[in-house]
């Protein structure tokens, strides 16, 4: 089947149409990835409660969404200008009111050039490198969807040393031995499966998972069936 869209579909666009606020932020999110060689990626999240509009720019080390940092939020009464930019880490210029696309552009330029902004992004880039990421000269403008993984430090319990873990929607605690096995990619814990790996993790005590109503129905039905022996 041939493509039915006319070739001149966009020919009438002047190119001078002001970008939507969300689009301006999306461009910055992609730009961050490019400028950091793909080590730090940005995501725009729509946090609107209509009719008011709000968009947040989150930044995170590549593949580590659990470390997502809300860099700034742009709020608008109705989706247009004026907007207020709140940049959380800038104590002296935390709030900026922008009357137009031009002033918003200027404000974002100033915010991104602040030494504390650069320092924050460098910290996240270092975290990405520490986790094995490699900077690519041309950057990576496509943000892969990664699942959040978070392992806290070790602490003592009556069950020995454990660490708080939250990943892939489940939470609990794992022992220092399991952490060591993971660190060493021990065969008992990490096994290759085609291009992926199977990770086997014993948890200490309870494991919690958040499920939807539909998932709970499936869980309950399967548990019931299992108890009946089939």
């Amino acid at each position: 089947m041939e493509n039915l869209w006319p070739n001149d579909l966009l020919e009438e666009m002047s190119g001078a149409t002001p970008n939507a606020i969300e689009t301006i932020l999306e461009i910055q999110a992609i730009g961050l990835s490019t400028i950091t060689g793909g080590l730090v990626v940005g995501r725009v999240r729509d946090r609107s409660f209509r009719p008011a509009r709000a968009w947040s720019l989150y930044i995170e080390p590549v593949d580590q969404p659990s470390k997502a940092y809300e860099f700034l939020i742009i709020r608008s009464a109705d989706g247009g200008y004026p907007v207020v930019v709140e940049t959380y880490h800038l104590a002296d210029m935390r709030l900026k009111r922008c009357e137009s696309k031009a002033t918003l552009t200027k404000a974002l330029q100033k915010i991104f050039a602040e030494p504390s902004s650069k320092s924050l992004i460098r910290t996240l880039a270092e975290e990405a490198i520490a986790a094995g990421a490699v900077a690519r000269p041309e950057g990576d403008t496509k943000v892969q969807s990664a699942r959040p993984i978070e392992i806290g430090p070790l602490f003592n319990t009556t069950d020995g040393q454990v660490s708080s873990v939250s990943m892939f929607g489940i939470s609990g605690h794992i022992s220092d031995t399991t952490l060591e096995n993971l660190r060493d990619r021990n065969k008992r814990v990490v096994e290759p499966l085609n291009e992926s790996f199977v990770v086997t993790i014993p948890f200490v005590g309870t494991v919690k998972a958040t499920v939807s109503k539909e998932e709970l129905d499936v869980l309950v039905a399967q548990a019931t069936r299992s108890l009946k022996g089939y």
Partner: protein
Amino acid sequence: MDGVVALAVALATDQDLSGPDGDVLLCLGEPGTLDVSQLQQQLNLQATGHQWWCQRSLSQRFVTVGTINQGTLSYSGETCGCLPTTVSRVNGQNEISPYELWFVHLMSPMNSDDASVLHTGVARELREAVDERERVRSNSATIAIGDFNMPPYSPGMTAPTTLNAAACKTAARGTRTVRAQKHNYFFNPMWEILGSRRSDQQPGSFYKRYDNSAIFWHLYDQVLVRPELVDSVVTGSARVMTTAGAFNLLTSQGGIDTRFSDHLPITISLAI
């Protein structure tokens, strides 16, 4: 620096607040250029018997100070200008209990066109972030403490789609259904302080005379807990502190001595 050291030491030595082991977890909001390593050194010199630690957050906007095992805190990113962390408490032979603790500093409505709209907006953003963390961590034992920059009776604190924080323990245990949608409550133990001046407590944590209001002491610094933690809040333990050891945090006229901070510290004890 001296005021912070005095405050932390006072908390660790007050067993009503920190329990028999002197468990302290203190958060300083907007600490500026405070020297964290010097603070830690001073605390370990002046309050021996505890292993003090101090940590600055990624945004530099929060410094956490504690005597509890630092390993029991698991930080992730920052959102809404707030610092969330998971605290795992080990209580004897019982299983480990994790709590989602949020150190809060919401935007000030000063200079905003409409304070009420702003309160509602930022409170809703925080509420959504709390809900999301509860889902991701499969844990609804949430505690939020800090400068909400709005009073307990603000729509941002009480509306169902915002923080939905009730003054009443009994009400907070249920859910609130509005237009067929269920909303979980928070319990706000700070209500009991509103308007109550005692010899050791002012009726708020922030003092400002606005032109359009007869309220001069404002209770912007608050603690919210989810219903499952209502019984863990030690009754009457929510406090606005006016002294930190030998330091008086008030001026001779009863206002806030801003050499320490423009807000008075608040504390809460939870049996966890």
